[in-house]
């Protein structure tokens, strides 16, 4: 059998095994739903199915993130497609009875055809509701590893890079650097030993895109990395994942083992001369290790602190060798591009930002959860259509994108199309995909203070501007929020923002002032209210006198 035939065979076998099932209940087993006991729910469903004998006809299946995280545990019933929300283990018998009777349980059903689902465009998350993340056969059955086997048996590395270049894919970790260009730089770099690293050190407050992808479709990342390795000529790869994601790590480990067993990773993949192994490295809870040079230092066993670039990792990376580092979501796009072609991909999105973007919706929004949308969608569509708007009839104030490196976008830009350039133009960044919505009860000084406190505690301390600057700026923000600051303090804050932004060693420090700068740009009046009138317009900050502080 050719490697391709082998894949088809696995898929066929798997499909045959499912033939006896006339229906299924798909339970979300990603972290959001597991945290409200979807694992217990799945056990209860298994037990109930067994008890009633429905286990012969109804498949109880764990699947990836179903998106509406705040309404979990979520269950999809097939073939009717009903989405159940807030399902408890106690509901198990009722659900099993319902699927046998082919009559949905009305009280648990979420509204059908919600904009939350209909307005999304799914590439990265296409398998989330289709496959069991712990079964490689499920992934193969939906066409998984087909792109890899096709590439290594019939195409050249240059062709693969060309495809990624033409697709217009850009780095999804936040920077938006053209992925194809990065790949070709590493491919061209001299040296036989090269590395592929998947940056899974997601650390922005409010962001859980990468975690969801790793938990819901881990093989997709492995396939993307293997394609990259083939394209650039690497034999070894690392996934640098934060240790705070135990479920993602567990599934990734499982996936690597399964792929090796099936000959889809390891030596002579698919019987070709292409070999590629992947190891997992765990981050020890340092946000700065998301910065590529710090990440490399950490993999090498050193202290996770960044070093000056150039030289870039593409030239001198892990162990001094040319290294390709891409984010989880970037790799998650790769197999779809190779499978469907760059033309298909580049038709999605806008001219400069192709494809889709996964966002984690959080904050004051009705549909807290994970979404994937085509680039070019407006913020209003994301927040009000897909996100369901602001709870309790409150008024929208701003949306924070890009985490501690990003900015707050006010109402006047709600109709702006979401793409790398437009977000940068209004003082924010695409970032990795965290989207925190704020309403009138959020104080923008407080928001800026929150992110500065984050940067201050996550600064590695290597370079002076970030080490001391973030602490000084945080103190100034405290002073402002407590009504103890003067206009001189504000001027100093702005001056320090400029200095830290332009002199810090790595991205952490260079972008740490962004939340301050963007809130100052659009909400200066709120700062002035704290300073001149000793008043917090949103009623969040507690005013304190100097006497109270110094007592």
């Amino acid at each position: 059998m050719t490697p391709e035939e082998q894949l088809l065979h696995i898929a066929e076998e798997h499909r045959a095994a499912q033939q006896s099932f006339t229906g299924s209940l798909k339970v979300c087993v990603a972290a959001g739903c597991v945290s409200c006991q979807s694992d217990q729910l799945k056990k209860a469903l298994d037990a109930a199915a067994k008890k009633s004998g429905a286990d012969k006809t109804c498949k109880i299946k764990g699947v990836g993130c179903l998106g509406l995280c705040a309404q979990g545990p979520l269950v999809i019933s097939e073939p009717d497609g009903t989405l159940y929300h807030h399902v408890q283990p106690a509901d198990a018998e009722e659900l099993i009875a319902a699927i046998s009777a082919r009559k949905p349980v009305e009280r648990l059903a979420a509204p059908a055809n919600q904009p939350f689902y209909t307005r999304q465009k799914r590439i990265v998350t296409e398998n989330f509701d289709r496959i069991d993340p712990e079964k490689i056969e499920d992934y193969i059955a939906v066409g998984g590893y087909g792109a890899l086997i096709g590439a290594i048996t019939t195409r050249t590395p240059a062709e693969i890079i060309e495809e990624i270049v033409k697709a217009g894919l850009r780095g999804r970790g936040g920077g938006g650097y053209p992925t194809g260009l990065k790949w070709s730089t590493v491919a061209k770099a001299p040296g036989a030993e090269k590395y592929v690293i998947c940056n899974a050190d997601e650390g922005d407050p409010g962001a859980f895109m990468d975690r969801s992808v790793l938990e819901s479709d881990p093989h997709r990342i492995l396939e993307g990395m293997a394609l990259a390795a083939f394209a650039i000529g690497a034999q070894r790869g690392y996934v640098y994942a934060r240790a705070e994601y135990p479920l993602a790590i567990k599934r990734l480990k499982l996936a690597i083992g399964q792929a090796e067993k099936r000959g889809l990773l390891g030596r002579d993949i698919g019987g070709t001369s292409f070999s590629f192994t992947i190891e997992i490295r765990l981050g020890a809870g340092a946000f700065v290790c998301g910065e590529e040079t710090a990440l490399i230092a950490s993999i090498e066993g050193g202290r996770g602190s960044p070093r000056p670039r150039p030289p870039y990792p593409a030239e001198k990376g892990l162990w001094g060798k040319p290294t390709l580092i891409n984010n989880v979501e970037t790799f998650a796009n790769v197999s779809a591009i190779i499978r469907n072609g760059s033309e298909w991909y580049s038709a999605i999105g806008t001219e400069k930002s192709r494809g889709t973007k996964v966002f984690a919706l959080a904050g004051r929004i009705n549909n807290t959860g994970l979404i994937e949308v085509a680039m070019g969608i407006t913020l209003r569509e994301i927040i009000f259509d897909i996100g369901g708007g602001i709870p309790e009839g409150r008024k929208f104030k701003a949306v924070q994108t890009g985490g501690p490196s990003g900015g707050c976008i006010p109402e006047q830009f709600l109709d702006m199309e979401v793409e790398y350039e437009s977000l940068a133009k209004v003082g924010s960044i695409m970032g990795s995909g965290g989207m925190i919505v704020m309403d009138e009860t959020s104080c923008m000084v407080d928001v800026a203070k929150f992110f500065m406190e984050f940067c201050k505690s996550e600064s590695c301390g290597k370079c002076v501007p970030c080490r001391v600057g973030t602490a000084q700026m945080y103190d100034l923000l405290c002073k402002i929020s407590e009504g103890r600051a003067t206009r001189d303090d504000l001027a100093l804050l702005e001056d320090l923002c400029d200095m830290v932004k332009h002199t810090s060693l790595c991205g952490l420090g260079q972008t740490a002032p962004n939340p301050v700068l963007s809130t100052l740009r659009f909400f200066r009046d709120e700062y002035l209210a704290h300073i001149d009138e000793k008043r917090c317009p949103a009623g969040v900050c507690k005013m304190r006198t100097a006497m109270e502080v110094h007592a």
Partner: protein
Amino acid sequence: MSAPARVITLHIDDREVGAHTDQTILDVARENGIFIPTLCHLKGLTPIGACRICLVEVAGFNKLLPACATKVTDGMRVVTHSERLDRYRRRVVEFLFASGNHVCSVCVSNNNCELQSMAQLTGMTHLTMPYRYPRLRVDASHERFVQDDNRCILCQRCVRVCDEIEGAHTWDVMGRGIEARVITDLNEPWGESSTCTSCGKCVHVCPTGALSIKGTAAAEMKKKTHFLAQYWTLKEDRS
């Protein structure tokens, strides 16, 4: 193997200078008598670009680059002094004074201190931001040397010299951000260090009074870094 060094020309402050591609901007500037201030850098130790004092403007880069850690390229145009760079350098010095407890008048390194000189050089006559007054440790457990965190600027010269030249790696950095400190071994008292060879190189590369020899009074501690120059010449001769 990296490609062999080539001879190139570049512009530093409108002067055309010749250089090798394996040199840094700082190397070339110094060779040509162009002064770029430095603090964490010390010739003979791996540059880390941490203090940001030596940042320069390079045409075509929207970011400022550390002269100590950036290799020259053909046709590069470098600006080493501008109103903006001066302002940033002064701010760096202010940050260092604000984040430690630097009391020059009573310091062993008074008049022999690179931080003190840098304040003078950048015209930093007073702080325009609050002092932090952190409570820091003084470790006098070593029989010959003293470590005073109040005067440490985290340049990591001690860490590097101990690792790269002495080969002991007694020093390292612990903690993050404003809490970062240099420590001996696993944050054990220096005097109890099982790796320290008491060679004193760390003391002599320390730009401030953070590391000093016991028994030296205010203004008595003069640092001698000639051993690095010898090491450097040896290394250059070999290559």
